[in-house]
């Protein structure tokens, strides 16, 4: 996952893009593949959850997300996604 995390005036702004085909059921049927898409994304700083999204097949391919949270200066953001097949990927990024 590509992540940009920037701290300014007490708030961290995160822009991230996950690499995932996000095949909806219709798309998968046409391609003769299994539907598979990210179903859950969670962002943490230390033990604290700062972002949480339950997602569907209707997010675009290689989903882009943007979110903000209070604090985070100098800390590390850990973003994890899980897809329908159960695969998950975690990416860490230091907040600038």
């Amino acid at each position, binding site marked *: 996952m590509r992540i940009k995390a920037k701290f300014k005036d007490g*708030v961290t702004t995160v822009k991230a893009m996950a690499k995932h085909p*996000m095949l*909806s*059921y*219709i*798309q998968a049927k*046409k391609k003769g593949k299994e539907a598979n898409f990210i*179903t*859950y994304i*969670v962002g943490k700083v230390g*033990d*604290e*959850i*700062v*972002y*949480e*999204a*339950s*997602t*569907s*097949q*209707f*997010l*675009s*391919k290689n*989903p*882009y*997300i*943007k*979110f*903000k*949270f*209070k*604090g985070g200066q100098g800390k590390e953001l850990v973003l994890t996604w899980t897809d329908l097949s159960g695969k998950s990927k975690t990416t860490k990024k230091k907040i600038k």
Partner: protein
Amino acid sequence: MERRKFLGFGAGILAATMVPASLSAQNYRETKVDLWKIKNEKGKPGVNAAIKALFGTDKVEDGKVKLKAPDIAENGAVVPVSIKADGASRIALFQDGNPEAAVVVFDVPKNGIPDYSLRIKLQQTSDVTAVAEIDGKLYKSTKKVKVTIGGCGG
């Protein structure tokens, strides 16, 4: 080797279920399984049913939610959407143009700021609806997005 991998995977799940309560996460794919199956049928969009499935009520007032989406999306495969709702504890996004109504559900964490952007797929011209829960009440904002090329392989 396969067996080893499998065991490792199992241990990972076990560790994930043993996280302290402060970390307890809400994965609505698991807690609200039916929500994601609610269909949009011709003349009978599933948006209200989906709102009810998620929040327990479909009593929703207009306002307090700022929903930003294009008037016309040239490519339905990539439609940028922004949702902002000050004071919201939960935000959800629905539409009536794809086979199913639910798109995404955000739980706003303690230090989270309810200001989210993402890109979604729309198969055809749709009414996109954002719903926010603020102090136990539901508010919504709806926007029509005209799609010239569908984004769900349609």
